[in-house]
């Protein structure tokens, strides 16, 4: 075997290098040097991000088990930036007394899941894909249970791992059926052999469940609010953006690449699931009082919208999807950033506690409001553009009624996003959250997010870049 092929996987390699370096430092560094651990980690990770943001030519490694397309660079860069923002936001939380000795673990686990996601994205074979998905899932479960002495966190971890494994089980079973029918686990080979026979269809249905679980689409979403509520906020952010973003991308590639032959069938499935996801999640979201739970349902509903890009199954759908993930990432992370800051300083996670936030922390509440507007898809914020593109892509393929239903649901989603804005802005509170002086890493993360929310949509070249690479398949 030609080991130099590994050098082509520079994205994975540098990430691995970062992980290893951090692990070594974590284990061996002195007490004094440890203070710079986080700064170092952030710098290393930024370098990794910068190094890997330029797309190259398509290639494949290990006989097609690993395939690279230029669009992968974009989606991975998006994930990198998202992770960076999450790390920035977690900075202060990791400096608290109970976590300070476990920072190394945090970085190690987080970056491991990222590594797993890389593998998922670039997989060309179901084995690689399965390893990736599990590499992403298992450290995630420990991250969810990161607050060891917190009942909620522990419970969330247990729920996550149980659901996740259950999903893997079903998925794996489905995959075994697919294998039985086609005799291969290479994406390309399966696509060639597949005839959409009954056994393949059943296999596909079981397999897809594992991915839908990751994206938390209705009815495979039930774990989401509980886990989001229990997990440490930074992890929730990570889970809702990075994990989900990867999964939707992978769903697209696998559905189109591998199961392209049964497009008619999975479009019907997705049709139903999208309608359910958006509607049910919206209905739940309007009655939430805990901000993290609320964001969980919001993210389920957003996932429904993202799936509109998948259902179209076209290059346009793909670029809209990637773009949507990008915008969604910034918007959602901005909200989570504010939530994290407030949780860290005031230990408040109920929406009602945000009453009159504007009058004590105007900047935070403005950022949050902008992000919520962006999530709701209100111009001139980026969320509007991403929604328009994804609707447009689906509409083009003839999903008129679906688009209309999704659009009608934006009214409901606008309602619950605005409810938060309303609480923050309209009335002053007798017991407000006090003025918070934000730490610098969080500030940086919020500034990045805000700038992105405002400008990503207006600057059309970003979408153009993604769209040029488009499908990449």
């Amino acid at each position: 075997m030609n080991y130099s092929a590994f050098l082509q996987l520079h994205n994975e390699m540098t990430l691995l290098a970062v992980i290893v370096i951090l692990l070594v430092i974590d284990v061996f560094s002195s007490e004094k040097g440890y203070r710079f651990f986080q700064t170092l980690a952030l710098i290393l990770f930024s370098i990794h991000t910068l190094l890997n943001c330029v797309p190259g030519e398509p290639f494949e490694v290990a006989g097609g088990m690993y395939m690279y397309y230029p669009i992968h660079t974009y989606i991975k860069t998006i994930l990198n930036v998202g992770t960076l923002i999450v790390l920035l936001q977690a900075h202060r939380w990791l400096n608290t007394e109970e976590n300070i000795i476990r920072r190394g673990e945090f970085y190690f686990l987080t970056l491991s899941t990222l590594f797993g996601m890389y593998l998922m994205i670039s997989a060309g074979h179901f084995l690689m894909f399965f390893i990736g998905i599990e590499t992403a899932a298992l450290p995630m479960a420990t991250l969810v249970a990161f607050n060891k002495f917190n009942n909620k966190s522990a419970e969330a971890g247990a729920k996550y791992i149980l659901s996740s494994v259950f999903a893997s089980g079903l998925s794996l079973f489905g995959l075994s059926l697919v294998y039985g029918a086609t005799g291969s686990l290479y994406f390309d080979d399966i696509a060639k052999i597949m005839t959409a026979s009954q056994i393949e269809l059943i296999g596909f249905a079981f397999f897809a469940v594992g991915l839908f679980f990751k994206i938390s689409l209705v009815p495979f979403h039930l774990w989401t609010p509980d886990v989001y509520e229990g997990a440490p906020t930074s992890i929730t952010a990570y889970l809702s953006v990075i994990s989900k973003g990867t999964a939707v991308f992978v769903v697209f590639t696998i559905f189109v690449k591998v199961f392209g032959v049964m497009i008619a069938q999975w479009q019907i499935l997705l049709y139903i699931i999208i309608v359910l996801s958006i509607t049910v999640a919206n209905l739940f979201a309007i009655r939430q009082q805990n901000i993290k739970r609320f964001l969980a349902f919001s993210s389920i509903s957003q996932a429904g919208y993202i799936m509109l890009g998948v259902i179209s199954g076209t290059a346009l759908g793909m670029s809209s999807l990637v773009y949507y993930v990008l915008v969604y990432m910034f918007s959602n992370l901005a909200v989570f950033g504010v939530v994290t800051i407030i949780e860290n300083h005031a230990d408040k996670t109920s929406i009602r506690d945000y009453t009159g936030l504007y009058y004590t922390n105007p900047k935070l509440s403005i950022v949050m409001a902008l992000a919520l507007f962006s999530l709701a898809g209100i111009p001139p914020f980026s969320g509007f553009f991403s929604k328009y593109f994804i609707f447009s892509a689906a509409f083009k393929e003839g999903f008129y009624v679906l688009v209309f239903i999704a659009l009608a649901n934006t009214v409901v989603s606008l309602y619950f996003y605005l409810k938060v804005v309303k609480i923050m802005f309209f009335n002053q509170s007798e017991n407000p959250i006090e003025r918070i002086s934000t730490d610098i890493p969080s500030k940086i993360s919020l500034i990045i997010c805000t700038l992105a929310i405002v400008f990503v949509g207006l600057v059309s070249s970003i979408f153009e870049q993604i769209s040029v690479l488009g499908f990449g398949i």
Partner: protein
Amino acid sequence: MQYTLLILLLPLLSFVVLGLMDTKWKARVAGSVGTLVLSVVAALSYYTAWAYFSTANVGGIYQKIVPLQTVWMQFSGQLHIDLGILLDPISVMMLVVISTVSLMVHIYSLAYMKGEKGFERYYAFLSLFTFSMLGLVVATNIFQMYIFWELVGVSSYLLIGFYYTKPEAVAASKKAFIVTRFADLGFLIGILILSFYTQTFDFGVLNSGNAGIFASASGVTFMGASVLSWAMALIFIGGAGKSAMFPLHIWLPDAMEGPTPVSALIHAATMVVAGVYLVARLFPVYVTYTPDVLHGIAYVGAFTSLFAAVIACTQTDIKRVLAFSTISQIGYMMVGLGVSGYGGHEGTGYMASMFHLFTHAMFKALLFLGAGSVIHAVHSNEMQKMGGLRKYMPVTHLVFLIGCLAIAGIFPLSGFFSKDEILAATYMYSTGLGIGMSFIAGLTAFYMFRLYFNIFWGKENSYEHSPHESPLAMTIPLVVLAFFSFFGGLIPFGKFVTSDGAAYTGETNYVLAIVSVLIGITGILLAAAMYRKKTMLPDRVSQSLGFIYQLARNKFYVDELYLFITKNVFFKGMASPVSWYDRHVVNGSVNGLAVVTQWVSVKIKGIQTGKVQQYAWVFLLGTLLMAFLILFL
């Protein structure tokens, strides 16, 4: 004759200047400016009349002259709204009437309104009214007329509500505006229908006798009448509103809440005859194409005339008596138009109606201003508070008597001539109607002299301040108007104003004339018998009439009926249910949508139990369902 534009522009200018200056000028300056402008306007009007009647007669027929016309708004197609000035016998006559009465009122008000708060505003409004009324009469097309028609309405509203702190005045102004507005709705719809079929607004075209333009409208029928008839009837409704024809008369008596000079100007001499003027303006159309409507007008006029005359006999507020008398006299004019034919002898009614309009403007303005003078002295409108005033106010007494004689139709005062012509025309049309009108003439004489005797004769009241003659600024206009009222009848009206523009001299029906005068004298004598001295006779008469008297005294309860309708049908029956419907049903259904969403949200929360095994159940079911769907769909 382009200088006629000034007749319009000067009052407008005066309005704008006075309105903008508001309280910055002293009251007297504002009054003088207004009056000065009006004198110029009056002078210009007389000059116009002289110039018109001396030059416009071509081949025995008075021509229509349009010295100015500009397209104000062009619609696609042939329709356009023009603004312009149309001079023909009736508009010129109206110019004279309006500017004369308006000038008199301006002068009169200098004294009458002295010291009132908002004196400047008053003059501004007077100017606005004069502008609007003049614009109305010189309109070249029906839409211009409508425009000024509305402006007249609003100036009337503003002037009636001049004492805006007085609730009655506010209510009266509102009532006047809304009732006339309601009538204007008919006018507007009439215009719409007419313009749709004829594709023109222009009076020149409409009155040209060109049957072609009406062909399409006459052909279409709706509910048994031609569309043209409908249109003309609707237009008449507009006129009926302004001219207070039954049943749209209810605003006029209430309008007496305004300052008395205003009543004289608007509610006696000028605005209220706008309806008559409108019918006269479109007379060729009425008489040629919709004679049925014209007959209707005659009967509406006759009924209104009788109705108002009966009520006038029972009222005690002197201004209201005059108001009902006005309604009655306008009814006369309407009858005159209604019974008229076109051209020559046939057209006597038309000529008579215009003649009566002219004379009535003079003597009714006189009567109102006289009444104002009395009110000024006594500080009350009620007859009971008056009596024996002839000693204190000789000039007023004299001119008032002239006014009463004129309206009673006693030879040789102006009312005799004009009324006689109307009666003649009516008898020509139908004897029954003629007898009715003669009876009304008698009633008129009776109630006018009831008024006269109650004010100037009868028992002398004990006055707190002894009444005194009004100042010169008030008596001069009275005298001038008295002069016109006395001698106005001597004008050979048929030479100037006829239905077809050709001069004609009517032959006098001497029998009718004598009978009419006798009827008038009978009325006067009856009144004298009852009211010259304080006796029990009036009470006895009223008691013996009992029910009928009560009906008439309460104006046949028409106001109450309207109140009932507006309150119960309009407000309780329409507005409140609509608001309720909007708040509860329409709004409720939108809120309901939100409520339903919330409700569903609560209902489905059960699936989120927090039990991981139940989650797995749903998970599994979802998977199986997916497998099922993908297999069988």
